[in-house]
């Protein structure tokens, strides 16, 4: 690869790449995102590539492994360009057929097309599928389109043009101004205005400054940062280079979660490529500007996603947060000014620079600008990553994009903001999702996880699940989080096990208040949220657990009673034979009954009863 020694060189290189690709007639995009990858996407690529080689048509057709397409529920996904044909759930056995008919020929493989549930119609083009059609894909657009490991592909699509624009005459202050105009707010959950942060970091005194990318995405069910970093690492890196230029940093770090080996691999590869092209290192694109960046792999602690803990961990210290009264923009990594942003925030920067802050600000609500990527998971049909404008109603996300709840069940709530976020109940389904509205509803934006829950979900059990996560992942530095949250978990567990006593709910509330008041870091302060928000909207469920020892959603096993309907029972004896505890008694041909003392609520009897005679009270 040739080093780019001037800004013009970048454009020349782009033209060269486009020239080389003129002969390409069709391009097969295979999703390499986490969902599709685990569904066997890797093997699809090999199979397509093998066919290309066998037929010797590599100069006319091209197979690329892209980043995540977002529609994970339907993976592995194959899209054939330029016709934009979308094949879902592709198995490796179908590859020769697809290759023959849709790549070499112009035919369709009918049974692999997306079928609309509403109309039963087959939809050919990716962008016509409702899941995509209702989204506003800006930041997350390139991820499914570019070859994630090839810098040339990114450059061919106009990559690094924002950097070129910045370096060809924008002053750092102008870059910061543009970001301020855009109204971009931190996508890691804090929602702090990015431009303001950059400005304070630029103004902070210090020879050496750092830019840091927080890719320690630890929220259960959230994976948009992973998808971005695996799919379009260059978009993130370009954003960081621009940020470094704006604040005057000379070194950058990507702190990536331990559990994301592919993201680490792709980011490292991208940094190497950028270095070879002279987009990193000394005199970037022949200018005075120098910057180098490194990837640091975390060790698996959730808390290291907190900015100060992340910096401590980068320094090789114990990954624990410190008090927020010293700002990291002034004294961060190694006590030097440091600007930390989330992956999604960095990835937004090139677009803002290229299209202007005004353009970005035109999307979204009054105080929350632009778009946000959510990972929509749980009891929902179209599991996946979606990007919508800020202020999009929750209903649109759940029903229009998410395709509603499977099995026609009733929507109960959506949990947003990761483990320390909160639940938004059914009555708020028309909530316009942005920073302010979520906060008002007692939840938060967080990094953008959305866990959809249906009527079969017990909210006390949900609170217990998230508390358990927080108990495990507390760093252990300050008492309220280390001990207080553990205590909350014990009380909620007691509720789920029928051991709760009157007054426990009040005790929980007392703990919520005290912990929120004075835990050391943001994680600790928000740790009681799973309880606080479920208590706010689903207090009746708590009451049922505590006072009536009853789980309305029939989830908490110790609270359930299995009973046999005397009308329906034929006395066939099957349940009695299958019961592992010998808890069912009854003579042949006579109605059976369950000994509640012995019953362990395993549910085997229900599964085995052919007459539907056993039910949960």
């Amino acid at each position: 690869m040739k080093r780019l020694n001037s800004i013009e060189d970048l454009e020349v290189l782009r033209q060269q790449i486009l020239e080389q690709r003129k002969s390409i007639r069709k391009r097969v995009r295979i999703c390499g995102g986490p969902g599709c990858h685990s569904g066997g996407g890797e093997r699809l690529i090999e199979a397509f590539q093998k066919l290309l080689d066998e037929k010797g048509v590599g100069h006319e057709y091209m197979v690329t492994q892209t980043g995540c397409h977002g529609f994970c529920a339907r993976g592995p996904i194959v899209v054939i360009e330029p016709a934009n044909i979308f094949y879902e759930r592709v198995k490796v056995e179908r590859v020769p057929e697809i290759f023959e008919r849709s790549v070499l020929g112009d035919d369709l493989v009918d049974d692999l097309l997306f079928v609309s549930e509403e109309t039963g119609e087959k939809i050919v083009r990716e962008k016509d599928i409702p899941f995509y059609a209702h989204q506003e894909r800006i930041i997350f657009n390139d991820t499914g389109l570019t070859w994630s490991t090839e810098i040339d592909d990114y450059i061919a699509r106009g990559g690094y043009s924002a950097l070129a624009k910045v370096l060809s005459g924008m002053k750092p202050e102008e870059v910061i101004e543009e970001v301020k105009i855009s109204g971009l707010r931190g996508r890691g959950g804090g929602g702090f205005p990015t431009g303001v942060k950059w400005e304070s970091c630029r103004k902070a005194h210090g020879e050496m400054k750092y830019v840091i990318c927080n890719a320690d995405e630890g929220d259960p069910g959230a994976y948009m940062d992973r998808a971005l970093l695996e799919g379009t690492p260059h978009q993130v890196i370009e954003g960081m280079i621009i940020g470094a230029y704006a604040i005057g940093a000379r070194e950058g770090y990507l702190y990536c979660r331990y559990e994301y080996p592919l993201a680490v691999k792709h980011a490292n590869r991208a940094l190497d490529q950028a270095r070879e092209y002279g987009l990193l290192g000394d005199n970037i694109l022949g200018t005075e500007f120098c910057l180098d960046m490194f990837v640091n792999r975390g060790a698996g602690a959730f808390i290291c996603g907190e900015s100060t803990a992340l910096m401590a961990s980068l320094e090789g210290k114990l990954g624990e947060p410190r008090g927020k009264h010293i700002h990291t923009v002034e004294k961060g990594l190694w006590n030097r000014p440091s600007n930390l942003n989330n992956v999604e925030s960095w990835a937004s920067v090139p677009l803002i620079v290229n299209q202007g802050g005004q353009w970005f600000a035109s999307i979204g609500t009054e105080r929350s600008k632009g778009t946000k990527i959510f990972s929509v998971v749980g009891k929902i049909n179209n599991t996946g990553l979606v990007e919508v404008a800020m202020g999009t109603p929750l209903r649109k996300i759940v029903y229009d994009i998410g395709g509603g709840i499977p099995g026609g069940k009733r929507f109960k709530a959506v949990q947003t903001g990761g483990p320390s976020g909160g639940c938004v109940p059914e009555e708020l389904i028309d909530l316009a999702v942005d920073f302010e509205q979520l906060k008002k509803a007692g939840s938060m934006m967080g990094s953008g996880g959305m866990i959809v829950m249906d009527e079969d979900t017990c909210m006390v059990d949900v609170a217990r699940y998230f508390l358990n996560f927080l108990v495990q992942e507390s760093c252990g530095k300050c008492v309220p989080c280390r001990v207080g949250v553990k205590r909350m978990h014990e009380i909620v567990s007691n509720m789920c096990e029928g051991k709760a006593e009157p007054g426990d709910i009040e005790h929980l509330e007392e703990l919520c208040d005290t912990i929120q008041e004075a835990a050391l870091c943001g994680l600790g302060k928000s740790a009681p949220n799973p309880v606080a928000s479920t208590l706010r909207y689903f207090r009746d469920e708590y009451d049922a657990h505590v006072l009536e020892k009853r789980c309305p959603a029939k989830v908490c096993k110790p609270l359930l009673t299995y009973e046999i309907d005397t009308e329906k029972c034929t006395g066939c004896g099957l349940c009695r034979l299958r019961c592992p505890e010998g808890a069912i008694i009854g003579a042949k041909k006579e109605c059976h009954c369950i000994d509640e003392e012995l019953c362990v609520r395993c549910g085997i009897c229900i599964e085995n009863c052919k007459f539907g005679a056993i039910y949960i009270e």
Partner: protein
Amino acid sequence: MPRLTIDDIEIEVPHGTKVIDAAERLGIMIPRFCYHRGLGSVGACRMCAVKFLQGPFKGLQMSCMIDAQDGMVISTTDAEALDFRRHVIEWLMLNHPHDCPVCDEGGHCLLQDMTVSGGHGMRRFSGEKRTYRDQYLGELVQHEMNRCIHCYRCVRFYREFAGYRDLGALQIAQKVYFGRLADGPLESPFAGNLVDLCPTGVYTDKPARFRARRWDLERGPSLCIHCSLGCNTVAGARYREVLRQEARLNEEVNGYFICDLGRYGFAYAGHPERPRSPRIGSQAVGWQEAVAVACDRLARLGPRSIACLSSARASVETLGTLKYLSKRVGSDHFVCFYDAAVKFKMGEIVSKLDGRTAVSLRDIEKADLLIGVGADPINAAPMLALAMRQAQRAGAKVVMMDPRPLFLPCDFEHLSVSPELFDVCLSALVKSTFDRERVGKHGEAAVTLYDRMLSCDPLDASVQARLEPLIAVVEGCRRPIIICGSDIAPASSVSFAADVALLMGEVKDQSGVFYVLPGANAYGAALFDAANGSSFESVVQEIEDGAIKALIVAESDPFRYVADRDRLQRALNKLELLLVLDYLPSETVRKAHIFLPTRAIFETRSSFINQEGRLQVAEKIHSPGTPIWQVSNKGHPPRLYGTGICGGEPRAAWRVLQQIAHTLVHSQNEISENDPWPVIGGECAVLARHHQHNGPLHGLRIIPQTSTAAFFDGDLDLQPKQPMDGHLTLLPVVSTFATEELASYSEIIQRVIGSPCAYLHSDDAERCGLLDCDRIRIAVDDGFLEIDLTVSDKMARGFLILPRHSRFEWQKLHCFAQGLPVEKIGNCTP
């Protein structure tokens, strides 16, 4: 200076004062666990929450995290704050094992205090407690992790403050564990501070474990006399025996901490073989008889036939009274140092330490450049290393000139040059900082010295190359301090270091020289021993010649220090009277014709002068006498309280010496029997001024503001000698805990010291055909000396470095003072 209001009381505090400290100044003790002024704030325990009513912060905040600012109004008793703190203490007690009855911390446990003051009484928790496995952390510190409340003080001290890495926080959440990766002794010589720091009983004093309740201890302010720094301690005794020591805050000396030698070295005072009864020959006698016989024999001798010997471990009281006695009996010989060279260096040091050059340990922490000249802090004065680390943490550069393979718990630049090159190196390092004009202000002699510095020989290229960047550092620094040893550093360097410090004071904001001296009271000994041409060498000579017939030895053991022990033995055999006063079961005590037992530091009020000329007092902690634990064969509760004659227990050396002096010259009325200070003042003019020395808490610096001594009079040693071919220069050096005299009688310390080890440069080792970890054998007159070898390339070539270790007879090597022929070294590795 910000003014703020705490609990309706207004107070003005210096900038940067934390609110928690501002409250403490008002006598309001805000509860805390993790906050410690020596370690700073971390915000982990959330115990110090107070309500901010007005000012830049509002609501409940941690008072340890926020600097006091103008206009703040704070309530420490606000209902919300009280309620919050009650919750915190409730949480902390959830997992605590409530084993106070068997916990050594009980009675002075912060957790006990806070539980009561926090108002937590009812347990609302029925779940399981989290439990841990304890670790073996060595012989000094006991580990009990279940009691932990996770304040992080231990790891903050151990890793950040002290710079050792073998103890840390492991795991996360409820499982956070403070310990080592595996069982094993803590590597830091400051580990004992964990006992003081831990707010509850996770780390307790192991040697004192289950020996006494804290409230039963007789406690009082004492001093560490194991090195020249004079760190302050609190000694605690029970049943006539010191059981444990803690660090005592002295903001000018040791700060909040002490080293393990200072903490655990006390056991010499309770040594089972400590002689506690007067003795004539081998016959135990009463005090009256012993003193009478001693006086009688002394009186029979001529005035010039008596010599007096003391040492740098003796208190000012002992030294002053012995000097008085020596004058009274008309002795020409009053000797405190065994080695004439050390004595000369001490004279230089005492004359050159004044208000312009002397610095304290606190000043070291504030320095931005530290230049070590022949000093090995970790081995010779551990707390100095800790102070140096604090300076380095704050950005100071540390440069050490030393032939030894030094270790420091901080980053430093090591110039491994031989002692003869110290002057040249120091000259090369600092000369560009001065100019003739400024130097001229100090007179002709200074200019002459400056010219000598400019003309010094060039160093060899490799050293010069390493010096170059350092010269720039010297030029740029504002607060340089020279740390100079008195052990391997030649006399010229000791003198030169002070000269450089004085000149530096001219061009820098602050400058000084910090000497490491050869004993706790070396400065005091030098004060008394100064205007006196006599040396121990000449005393021995005169004994051999028959001129000296009696030797009075007060708290000194020449056998330990003098290289040629056979000669000393022969000389002592010639004496008509060897009168020994001491509290150690030493070789000299065994040879005494008449022995008089004296009191150790814990048994009498005594004063010591540390290396910067600071006079400090150790109070009497307990009455002398055999520890009851020894008498009653470690039984509990003790049934037997004493042996021996009542009133026969040891007496303060100064009392005995004064009594002898008065008996000999019949002048009892002259001075008080209960106060040694009139006598001391009479012998030393400097100390006369400090007669009433119930002085300031931090001790009293007795150095003159401007010394009248001639600076710049020393001759620089600028022409290094060429070593003899085929010879190694022997360098006996101090070794942490293993060299010091008192510690060698301290059973606790003996348990933890490592085995002796010699050092050789890798080039020399190759020449001698030796490998790292070999066991070498050195042929001496009457056999062989064996020692393990460590090969290092971080030391000077041409040296065999040997520890003055209590388990290695380094004295036998005195015949190789001029160099050890390499063929004398054999390898006895199997």
